């Protein structure tokens, strides 16, 4: 297998792990962790594509950097949301967050 495929498969592995995690996890923090896994996969795929194909190298790296920035922003926001949820409902488990349920 060529290096590009190998790196892409690794990225896919991250995506799959993240998806699995998001479905199986029951707490918001666990889901956040899974999302981070997926974002990492995205970054890895971007960089691999940029480094090993005729595409512009810098763009891939910039893309990965922006993904990291977004991940940081997202983590901040999710942290705040988790705090609010935990404070209001006394738990950060998704099953208990059911205020809108009829």
């Amino acid at each position, binding site marked *: 297998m060529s290096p590009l495929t190998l790196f892409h498969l690794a990225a896919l592995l991250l995506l799959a792990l993240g998806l699995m995690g998001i479905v199986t996890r029951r707490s918001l923090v666990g889901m956040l962790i899974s999302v981070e896994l997926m974002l990492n996969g995205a970054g890895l795929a971007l960089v691999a594509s940029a480094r090993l194909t005729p595409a512009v190298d810098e763009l891939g790296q910039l893309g990965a950097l922006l993904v990291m920035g977004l991940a*940081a922003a997202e983590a901040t926001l999710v942290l705040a949301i988790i705090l*609010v949820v*935990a404070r*209001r409902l006394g738990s950060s488990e998704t099953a208990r967050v059911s205020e809108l349920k009829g």
Partner: protein
Amino acid sequence: MDFLAYPAYGLYLLLILGGGLGAILSQSLVRALMGLILTLFGVAGMYLLMAAPFLAFMQILIYVGAVSVLIFFAIMLTRSSDGGEAGREGSRGLGRMLLGLIAGLTPLAILAWVVVHKAPTELPLKPEASLASLGQYLTGPYALAFELISVALLAAMAGAVLLGFERRRAR
């Protein structure tokens, strides 16, 4: 890739796999976080393997140094019952796992097929992109994206602070 790269790739893949499994399967959230960190190191290693050390170090600096610390904070502040989740109860937990496997494996299978069979033309590893050219792209044609990221970060920060304050008022 030269002769050392394949073992290195294998090692990093193992880090990613082991860490990822730890991150999604372990009962204790702090252990899951440690799994995530292991994965992050694996990804950083892959960046290094692709001769993108800047990204590798940024990965460690941002993800390991900042994001995972934030997550740790989230775990601590929500007092997620000893950092663990309530036990997955019997059959429902099993169903969940099954769903998770489907959710994970389906896209993996489809995309893997695409990646393997529709691989684009491939070049050998290009020489390392200089930091200066990265910067030029960031301040030149892609300045808007750069600014947008900073706006997003600012918005996230402001939003987080706002949410925090709201929480305090609600008390």
